[in-house]
């Protein structure tokens, strides 16, 4: 039950991303549920695997604490509050969508929200493009999905394994 409550608070307090920071504070700093080292390894795993980073991180921590019930509590806590909040917000917006400039306002909010994503894109690009293979994989994914509109699933299925293979070969050459 404590797990549910802690993750519910994380879910509701977090606006516009950056939830990993909250999880770290609640789970490692305040409660000492897992060690800092274990948290960081879990974070890396959460980023690699498909799925929202924060949902994966909740699964990882829930599993460590209590197994299956722990996972259910963490994930349920994380998602239930925002689930209702986002629907409530959409209902309110439905009522007001006909006032003049409502669409302009939403375009503005969407554009500003993109700014938050651009920071991650910037950091990620700097990190990934250090090796040529990483830069190629990044460009191929972006052009395939964003410019040529190839199906996302196909692009991931082709570029993903090739990129991992390149990193694997590169890693062995370094060693």
């Amino acid at each position: 039950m404590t797990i549910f409550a802690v993750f519910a608070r994380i879910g509701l307090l977090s606006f516009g991303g950056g939830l990993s920071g909250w999880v770290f504070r609640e789970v490692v700093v305040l409660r000492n549920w897992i060690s800092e080292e274990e948290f960081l390894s879990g974070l890396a795993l959460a980023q690699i695997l498909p799925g929202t980073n924060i949902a994966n991180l909740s699964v990882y921590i829930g599993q460590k604490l209590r197994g299956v019930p722990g996972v259910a509590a963490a994930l349920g806590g994380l998602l239930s509050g925002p689930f209702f909040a986002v629907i409530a917000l959409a209902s309110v917006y439905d009522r007001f969508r006909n006032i003049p400039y409502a669409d302009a306002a939403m375009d503005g909010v969407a554009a500003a929200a993109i700014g938050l994503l651009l920071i991650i894109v910037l950091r990620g690009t700097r990190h990934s493009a250090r090796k040529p293979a990483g830069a190629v994989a990044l460009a191929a994914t972006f052009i395939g999905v964003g410019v040529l509109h190839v199906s996302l699933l196909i692009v991931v299925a082709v570029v993903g394994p090739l990129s991992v293979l390149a990193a694997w070969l590169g890693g062995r050459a370094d060693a």
Partner: protein
Amino acid sequence: MRDDNVLIALVAVFVPLSFASIGGGTSILAGIQHQAVDVHHWVTSREFVDMFAISRAAPGPGSLLTTLIGWHIAGWEGALIATLALYVPSSLLCYGVAFVWRRHRGKVWHTALEEGLAPVGVGLMMAGVLVIMQLSGGGVLPWLLALGTMALLLRWPKLHPLPLFFMGGVIAVVVRAAVS
């Protein structure tokens, strides 16, 4: 019957996307847009941008955008099904892999996976950014707002994003009113 078909379609669309969302929910923005707007006509481009903005302004993970799409086409049932379809598959996978992961830290394949999949995640996120930008009115203003927000957050990382989103909305309204 028609309702059942919609729920099945939601599962059929979001389960594969769940497994493809490497690097977080934002990486499948382009995929969600393509399926929901172009393929299934569940929402219009206009509604999609609205939903994206709402899901970003609400608390919690941004990928609750899928919750809104489900809610829009099939009410509470649709919202629940769309949310579960997006979160459960990736979570099950994560559960399984977490066991193995704890045992193999620092090995070569471990690092190769980390290094190889990171650029794919970033590339997907870039594509998502491009899609939203093309949908939200086009022109220079959205880019200025996005880059301005980015610059402010880079300079002062502790700024709360929500007031910035609000400011973006206000600026967009003022500019639209001045132009028309």
